[in-house]
């Protein structure tokens, strides 16, 4: 294919249909993978790990949601039961539509999951009639009613088959949008409930619970309240309130920002028809904290920053983790070793020659080798079995490191998270990040945190230490157990302090006043200052109560724990096996930058076209580049307004150069029809991409829209 005719930045070659097989996921993975021989096992490992993470995550999410969902379910049940009471007060009350305002936070992409599980739960336990609507499908009142009816009547088709004929009728009616009124719904509802009346008398006695639900409420979920047209919503509520006597309606509003939006959207006359109750769901940062808590260590600076900076969405965060995982297993052949202990050890034994060579290439392993004795070094570099042995040991070490790392991290977090001004961050993820980056104890914040800890009151310190002990209890490794013993011993000592109580406080005044007396009578100012400083020092060192001694001891213990176990993973040999660190890849994949890539394509077409002729050294575009690149390059040299004719001339000159015409001949740089057409096309493409626009200031000019190189 000739490139001269192509002016766009990409080619589409249609693959012949026969050649192309539908590749399975696995094939996709193996394809283009480094070290293809083991790719299958790696793929399997990857999938296993991902499945595990996924199930963990799902469990977690269910757990988090259960609380709020339970309260919502209770609310719906209560509403449907109070409806059936008929005492004086409820008779007198203006008929309100019970409404639950569900505040979910701004992480909109996550809401779908929540609503899905909510409606499923509702269907299972409270009522079969649940309809959820989204703002984008309900531009007008007509559509809203239609959707609600469709959802409500439609669900019934799937639920009971014996009513098929009727529902067929109703759906036929529905096709005539004329009948889309709540009246239809009303008729349908009474018909339905009557039927269940006549059907169930036999069953009814057996299950008294069902008596409550003779009139199951109709729940309508508004997924994104903010996006709804206020007018539509108001009208819909007005209509519904007319039918509330006959239909047990109920609303659930999904709110992303704050509940006061209800007041902004609905005037008093409308909101007075609603009986709103508020439900606050867990904020998404808490959500994230718990999610991360359960994941194993990968470098996720980028992911977290995307989360915090951009969308707050847990779902996309998980997607990011998935990508990182995939990428890790895909590009790092040694990731076979990133699995359970036994399997890992087994896999070590099966490593081939090439893989061992790769291990030797690993920077962390190189560092390890350098530390060894020369003889050992040689051994490692030549003897494969020995290398395998060492690897096994190293991997065991790595696992041990992990075992120690997390409990210690949690301990440190419990200690520091309540300090004023949060020197080490409020959330465990912040601490985690700090620890992953470098030695935490060299950190300034760590020092200040320790200083603050040294000022803690007794009961606070004890409660914190107790929490630490609880955390340590969960871990199984020996080191942690011994640490736990130490800690408990310390706690016991603290308690002893309590019982001994109040050794007579050292005669404080004396200790302060006495040095003053010792001061020489005549001194100059400098000496006085010095003496006072000394005094201060001595006072500090002297006046350590037994509690303070013990406190220092405890903190030293924590400090040593941190120093021995919280070293960053880079310091561990073979850490590359388990840690994925190419944040650039992740960023490139997740943080789409359309404009940057367009500009990259225009600036250096070689990057995308992979055509050697287009390669150029100093960033200038060769004259063989696609037309649009040339036009783009030329337009960068212009000011705000670009004269089209000049531009065309310049373009023709460049293109003629590419065609190899003699620069001295007459026709060089002449504009012929073909060039003219190519130019027009390139310019209009540039306009389409949003770099220029036509202007009314001068007729034969276009205006430039973008500036700068980025």
């Amino acid at each position, binding site marked *: 294919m000739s490139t001269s005719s192509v002016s766009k930045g990409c080619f589409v070659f249609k693959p012949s249909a026969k050649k192309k097989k539908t590749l399975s996921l696995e094939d996709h993975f193996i394809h283009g993978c480094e070290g293809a021989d083991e790719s299958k096992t790696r793929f399997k490992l990857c999938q296993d790990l991902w499945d595990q993470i996924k199930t963990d995550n799902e469990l977690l999410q269910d757990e988090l949601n259960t609380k709020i969902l339970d309260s919502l379910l209770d609310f719906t049940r209560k509403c449907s039961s109070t409806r059936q009471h008929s005492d004086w007060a409820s008779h007198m*009350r203006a008929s309100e539509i019970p*409404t639950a*305002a569900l505040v979910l936070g701004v992480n909109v992409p996550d809401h779908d999951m929540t609503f899905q599980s909510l409606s499923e739960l509702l269907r299972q336990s409270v009522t079969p009639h649940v309809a959820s609507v989204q703002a984008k499908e309900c531009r007008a009142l007509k559509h809203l009613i239609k959707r609600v009816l469709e959802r409500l009547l439609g669900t019934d088709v799937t639920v009971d088959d014996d009513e098929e004929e009727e529902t067929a009728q109703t759906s036929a009616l529905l096709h005539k949008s*004329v009948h889309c009124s709540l009246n239809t719904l009303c008729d349908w509802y009474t018909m339905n409930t009557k039927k269940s009346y006549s059907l169930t008398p036999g069953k009814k006695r057996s299950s008294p619970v069902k008596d409550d639900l003779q009139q199951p409420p109709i729940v309508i979920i508004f997924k994104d309240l903010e996006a709804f047209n206020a007018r539509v919503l108001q009208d819909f509520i007005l*209509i519904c309130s*007319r039918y509330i006597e006959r239909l047990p309606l109920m609303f659930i509003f999904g709110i992303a920002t704050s509940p006061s*939006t209800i007041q902004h959207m609905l005037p008093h006359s409308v909101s007075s028809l609603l009986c*709103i109750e508020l439900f606050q769901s867990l904020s998404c940062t808490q959500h994230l904290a718990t999610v991360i808590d359960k994941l194993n260590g990968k470098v996720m600076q980028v992911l977290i920053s995307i989360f915090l900076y951009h969308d707050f969405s847990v779902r996309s965060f998980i997607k990011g983790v998935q990508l990182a995982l995939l990428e890790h297993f895909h590009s790092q052949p040694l990731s076979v070793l990133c699995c359970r202990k036994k399997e890992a050890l087994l896999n070590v034994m099966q490593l081939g020659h090439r893989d061992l060579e790769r291990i030797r290439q690993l920077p962390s392993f190189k560092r390890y080798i350098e530390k060894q004795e020369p003889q050992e070094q040689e051994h490692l570099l030549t003897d494969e079995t020995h290398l395998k042995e060492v690897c096994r040991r190293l991997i065991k070490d790595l696992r041990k490191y992990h075992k120690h790392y997390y409990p210690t991290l949690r301990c440190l977090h419990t200690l520091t998270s309540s300090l004023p001004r949060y020197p080490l961050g409020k959330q465990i993820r912040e601490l985690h990040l700090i620890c992953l980056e470098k030695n935490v104890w060299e950190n300034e914040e760590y020092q200040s945190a320790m200083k603050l800890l040294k000022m803690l009151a007794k009961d606070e310190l004890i409660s914190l230490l107790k929490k630490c002990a609880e955390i340590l209890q969960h871990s199984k490794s020996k080191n942690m157990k011994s640490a736990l013993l130490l800690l408990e011993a310390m706690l016991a000592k603290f308690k002893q302090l309590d019982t001994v109580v109040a050794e007579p406080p050292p005669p404080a005044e004396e200790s302060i006043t006495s040095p003053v007396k010792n001061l020489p009578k005549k001194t100059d100012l400098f000496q006085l200052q010095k003496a006072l400083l000394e005094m201060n020092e001595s006072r500090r060192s002297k006046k350590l109560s037994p509690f303070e001694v013990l406190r220092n001891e405890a903190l030293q213990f924590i400090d040593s724990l941190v120093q021995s176990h919280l070293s960053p993973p880079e310091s561990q040999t073979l850490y590359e096996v388990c840690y994925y660190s190419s944040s650039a890849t992740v960023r490139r994949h997740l943080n789409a*930058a359309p404009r940057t890539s367009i500009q990259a394509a225009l600036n250096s077409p070689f990057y995308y076209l992979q055509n050697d002729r287009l390669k150029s050294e100093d960033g200038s575009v060769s004259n063989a580049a696609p037309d649009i690149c040339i036009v783009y390059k030329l337009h960068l040299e212009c000011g705000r307004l670009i004269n089209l004719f000049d531009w065309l001339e310049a373009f023709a000159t460049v293109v003629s150069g590419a065609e190899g015409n003699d620069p001295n001949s007459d026709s060089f740089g002449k504009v012929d029809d073909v060039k003219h057409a190519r130019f027009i096309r390139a310019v209009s493409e540039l306009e389409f991409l949003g770099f220029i626009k036509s202007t009314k200031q001068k007729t034969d000019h276009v205006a430039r829209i973008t500036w700068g190189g980025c």
Partner: protein
Amino acid sequence: MNGYVSVMRVRVFELMMLLSAGVEETDAQSKPHQYSYPSIFIYGHQSSGKSHVLNVLLKELELPHATVSCVECVSVALLFEQVLLSFFGCHAASLLPRSPSLSDFVRIYRQQSSQSPAKQTRYIVMEKAELLRDSDANLLPALLRLQELVEDNVTVILLSEIVWDRFRPNTGCFEPLLLHFPDYSKGELQHILAQDRNPSYSDEFYSAYINILLGVFYSVCRDLRELRHLAALNFSKFCEPLAEGKVKETDTHKLWRNIEPHLKKAMQTVYLREVSSLQWEQMQQMEEKENGAVRGLSAHTHVELPYYSKFLLIAAYLASFNPARTDKRFFVKHHGKIKKTNFLKKNEKTSNHLLGPKPFPLDRLLAIFYSVVDSRVAPTASIFSQISSLVTLQLLTQVSHGDQIDAPKYKCAVSMDFICGISRTVNFEIIKYLYDFL
């Protein structure tokens, strides 16, 4: 329920005169000599008894009527259908074609009415008639003289909260009979509210309660519906000392002292729907245990936003409330010293905050965003998607039409307090960047 009717004797009398005109004639002969008046327009404030009185009358007199709420009639088809349904039954309604026109309706109506001629005047009651103005231009004039069109003894009654002057179309139309329902006076309200007393207490006791209730609420609310609602909610509290045996039914003063603070509190919470009625009841039950456990709706104003969204919002706020000319002064490093007085224009002397947010193009928003945010941010797709998600959260509003993708314009829709809170969380001193506070 005759309470309403008896209170508004005058209005009812007028109405009766109008309605019964049709009745008498039909009673006397099988065919009426003359039709009743083609259309009546009844107006009055919310819950001044318009539809209630009318419905009761129509029912009591057993007149054929169709009541249609205009809110519900998303399309005219629905309106026609309901009218036909209640006058002639199902099969008539099903005769209507898909998306029927007015003439379809008239045709079917005539056909049906010739089959079953009216013995009495038929009444079509249109609630919330002000919405008719927004529907097809020919609908309202046609309804006003429907009698002529269908040649049947039919009267259209329009109920509305606004006066007739606001209805009259430009082209002119048939003038309906106007009938005003004035607001209830305090005495009337008292009378009506006292009607629905709790069966387990005496009349006097309940009316004393209503008296106290009105004393508190009358100054802020005259809506009968709302008052009834409040009366029902607070009555149990009122009866509490009675049930405990502390006070006798006649000791009004003590009862008043007991209930008054509660009513005041109710005015701030339930009446504004800060707290739902269910929660209010719960609150009353556990009042002694803890106070203020339930927070009102507007108490939750805190909104958590992603980091860049916060800056986008701040940038949008700045773009909305600063004149574009001043951007140079705020966001260019070496802007020199420009005094405010130098670039005051005449119309800019008033505070921009009083004038409200101004629309700004996307370019300006992004330019300000990049200079406001402290780190270098790549223009990724997620930044742009955040702008649109801010729009869906209604923190920004898109001013230009949604179809225009070329240079969209936005407005910032958040309050000063809100943006101050947001900028505090990211350590940005927004006041320094606002032209109004220079």
